[in-house]
């Protein structure tokens, strides 16, 4: 997967408490989810899209929750972090979640097109409007600074584009990964930091926005490593040459996505499974430390949760005593 971005909060599809290793999500995220239930957020997003594009109402109504972000903890991260910094306006927080869901709708389409080379035609028609509603809705939260937030979006989108271009370079063959590429995998989430800037500003904690964004991107590097490992079979099928796919193909000839067990065995055997989890643990550890320094408790807590999850999976892998681990 290309990796959606949190502004477009890509976000966690896992229900609270599930996931690798089973470590539960931070309480602040679950609390935010309780205050703004997913059914409410997705309904508002569908209403907003239907109002802007009445002709597409049936299409929008038919969308699964996953098009808008699902009930993941990650989706609620900007709102929860804003509340932690002192933002208490429920209307603003609810609106933020709605616009993030709209952004997610756009990036679902974009990710699918990039990853698969094909996407549903009607989603294509809706996608541009979803992006516009996301951007307009976001800047309307603080209209006096709208130019600055749009600028932030363009800047972070450029970072996202650079990250996607690095991905695409690997599709031309077995192009080895570099260390800097792996460390910067989280850059694909860069547009998600605009929401973090927004809540920091609204909470009167503007000085926290940049360091918290750095922590968030480090967290996202870990998440991307975990996801790329999990998605190796599908990525092999679609030609998405992530690090696990590239490493497995380099070590073993003739891997076929139609034989998923063989692919997973190759990912373990070439050492990239353990390597990905170790590197993810390092990224989560750094993210927690950076977030602590930024007084971004929710990000820090989520990074620790994922550190536990990745470490647990690494231990499980090592316990098998397989070559490559």
């Amino acid at each position, binding site marked *: 997967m290309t990796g959606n971005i949190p502004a477009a909060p890509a976000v966690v599809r896992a229900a609270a408490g599930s996931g690798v290793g089973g470590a539960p999500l931070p309480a602040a995220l679950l609390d935010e989810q309780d205050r703004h239930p997913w059914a409410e957020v997705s309904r508002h997003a569908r209403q907003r899209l239907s109002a802007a594009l009445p002709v597409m109402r049936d299409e929008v109504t038919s969308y699964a929750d996953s098009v808008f972000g699902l009930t993941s903890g990650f989706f609620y991260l900007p709102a929860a972090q804003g509340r932690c910094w002192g933002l208490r306006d429920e209307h603003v927080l609810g609106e933020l979640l709605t616009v993030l869901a709209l952004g997610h709708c756009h990036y679902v389409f974009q990710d699918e097109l990039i990853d698969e080379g094909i996407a549903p035609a009607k989603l294509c028609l809706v996608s541009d409007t979803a992006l516009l509603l996301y951007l307009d809705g976001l800047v309307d939260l603080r209209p006096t600074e709208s130019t600055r937030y749009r600028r932030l979006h363009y800047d972070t989108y450029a970072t996202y584009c650079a990250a996607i271009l*690095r991905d695409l370079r690997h599709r031309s063959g077995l192009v080895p990964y570099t260390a800097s590429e792996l*460390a910067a995998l989280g850059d694909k989430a860069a547009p998600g930091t605009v929401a973090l800037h927004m809540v920091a500003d609204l909470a009167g904690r503007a000085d926290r926005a940049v360091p918290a964004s750095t922590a968030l991107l480090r967290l996202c590097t870990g*998440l991307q490593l975990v996801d790329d490992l999990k998605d190796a079979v599908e990525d092999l099928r679609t030609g998405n040459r992530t690090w696990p796919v590239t490493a497995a193909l380099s070590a073993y000839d003739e891997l076929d996505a139609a034989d998923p067990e063989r692919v997973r065995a190759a990912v373990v*055997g070439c050492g990239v499974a353990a390597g990905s989890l170790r590197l993810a643990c390092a990224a989560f550890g750094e993210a927690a430390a950076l977030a602590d320094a930024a007084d971004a408790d929710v990000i820090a807590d989520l990074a620790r949760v994922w550190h536990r999850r990745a470490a647990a999976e690494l231990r499980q892998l090592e316990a098998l005593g397989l070559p490559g681990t």
Partner: protein
Amino acid sequence: MQQTIPADMAELTTHAEQELAEVSERRESAPDIEEIRKRMPQANGDQDAW
């Protein structure tokens, strides 16, 4: 594509270099894939992290 490494990413980049080196070293002596396959548990269907 050359990528500038931000100073605050140096530690993670160094760690990534080590992991890449380990994977690269294994490439020539990768274990038999069928042996690994036999001993691996079934996939558990965990959902995406994002």
